[in-house]
């Protein structure tokens, strides 16, 4: 068993000026290299939990440790920098900035994180080359790269570009929030296999949130968020 990369200790979160906790998690941890499936139907505090782990929101009480660092002790700016350095994100849909090219979308995190830029450049000669390499691993062919706008890509292709962005510069953690819900069933499995392969290659931990329990079987471990989150409040 590897050391936990994410651990939550008696974490509670409530919005200012409200009386009910949205998140109340006694204990939760994710170990290194683990591929964790979090089963989260809507309304169970899923977004809030991910924002807490990302350091975007600050818990009302409790401690969150990421990679052995207590991010609850960090300033907001430091948490932002920490997130940029160590966590990649893939969202449900509309992951890409429409005004940037495919390549620029992929290398976007390198502009906000020195360490990921350095890591990228240690493997490749340029950021563009790294992005190109990642994209080709994800099956984005040269013809797609020439498209004027990322919006001309299919949804499946857009999600794969988002994976490339999450993985550029090899962050230790990848958080995927319903990345497959816009894909059809065959594409979902293909997408997951690609995601797993790349996570294994770069040695990162995967936190995968979805309400689609059919995908559970492909993961190392499954956690049900409604069971984990002891709150009585409806989000």
């Amino acid at each position, binding site marked *: 068993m590897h050391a936990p990369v994410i651990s939550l200790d008696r974490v509670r979160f409530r919005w200012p000026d409200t009386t009910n906790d949205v998140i109340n998690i006694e204990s939760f941890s994710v170990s290194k290299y683990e591929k964790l499936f979090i089963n989260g139907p809507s309304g169970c505090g899923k*977004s*809030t939990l*991910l*924002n807490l782990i*990302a350091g*975007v*929101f600050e818990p009302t009480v409790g401690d969150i440790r990421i990679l052995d660092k207590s991010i609850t002790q960090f300033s*907001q*700016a430091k948490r*932002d*920098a920490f*997130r*940029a*350095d160590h966590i990649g*994100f893939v*969202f449900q849909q*509309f*992951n*890409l*900035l*429409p*005004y*940037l090219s495919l390549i*620029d979308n992929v290398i*976007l*995190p390198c*502009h*906000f*994180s020195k360490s990921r830029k350095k890591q990228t450049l240690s493997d490749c000669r340029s950021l563009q080359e790294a992005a190109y390499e990642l994209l080709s691993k994800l099956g984005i062919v040269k013809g797609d790269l020439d498209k004027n706008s990322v919006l001309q890509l299919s949804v499946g292709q857009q999600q794969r570009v988002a994976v490339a*962005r999450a993985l550029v510069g090899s962050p230790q953690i990848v958080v995927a*929030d319903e990345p497959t819900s816009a894909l059809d069933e065959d594409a979902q499995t293909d997408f997951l296999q690609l995601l797993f392969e790349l996570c294994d290659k770069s040695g990162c931990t995967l936190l995968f949130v979805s309400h689609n329990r059919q995908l559970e079987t492909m993961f190392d471990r499954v956690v049900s968020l409604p069971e984990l989150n002891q709150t009585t409040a409806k989000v």
Partner: protein
Amino acid sequence: MKVLLSLSIKSLWNRRFSVALTVFSISISVLLLLGVEEIRTQTRDSFTQTISGTDLIVGARSGPVQLLLYSVFHIGDATNNISWSSYQEINRHPSVAWSVPISLGDSHRGFRVMGTSSDYFHHYRYAREGRLAFQAGKPFADLYDAVIGVEVADALSYKLNEKIILAHGLGQVSFAKHEDKPFRVVGILVRTGTPVDKTVLISLEGIEAIHIDWQQGTMPQPGQQVSADQARNMQLQPKAITAFMLGLKSKIATFQLQRSINEYAAEPLSAILPGVALQQLWSMLITVETALLVISACVALAGLLGLTSALLTSLNERRREMAILRSVGSRPWHIFSLLVAESGIIALAGCCFGILWLYIGIIFLSPVLQSAWGMSLTITMPDSFECIVVAVIVASSVLISTIPAWLAYRQALNDGMMPRL
């Protein structure tokens, strides 16, 4: 931060059509502000140079603005005349280089008639180095010759050799006409944008000739009339004139001569510096220009509000964009500065286009304005006022954009990475 600037430029380019509208509305307000200012300064310049190259204007004792008004602008009446002998005596002063007498009091169908010498055509200057030029004909030579300004010619459709009858007094409709002594149009002047355009110019002797049989300002009694040809053989040296213009050999003597004319013992006279009097007159018109500037400032304000509302309305549709930026590690203040930078870029582009429109406008409109009103507009390097306008507009748009930027900042904090759309 370089990446933010490049992001904001790319983001703006992505929304280029709506952004172009905002840029356009700002450029229009900049155009108005600068255009009004340009017209204001250039009209002031051409106004204050309605008469230039003349060092002193001398008339009967009165205030400088009044003397200027009747002698140059032909507005109002002279308080008194100057005797010919005083004029001759001052004319003999060693520092006087040239002098041009002016005699007013008659009119032609509402336009003033001015008696003067043919030196007037050599010495009258307007708008820096503008000289009187003829679009047709030549200066008066004969006793009954007249030269008319372009507006007289246009309004009355006069051509060369037209016979005109001058009227006594200044009314539009006059019952006392010098019908026995018609004048012939021998010259039409080019437009100057000065009161000369509305003037009928004849010789001093012509003025004397038409009044030679008049007694104390009333029409000649029957039997005492002098015919036009008889008048030619009579003594036509005027006994009095209304005012005269002086050019000096050296500018240094101006104040000295002015004082000695003002203290002239034989007759109460006033000598004025036309430039100074024109400035005084212009300062009375300052409320008009202030009003114009206030209006254009309001237009600029409307442009800025348009910019803010455009940013505000775009905020909601850009929540996803902000969330993506947050997820890759941008801080809330990055979002804030992104919007501020966008608004600064829009304002700067608006200013550049506004100045461009102004220059294009000047290039195309300047010939039209010149021929219609004699107003000369020239392209000048952006002066301090224009720089201030640009700086104020960019600064206030940056300032005003802190409102949507702050909202975006709050929104980015609340949304986190998963905006509820």
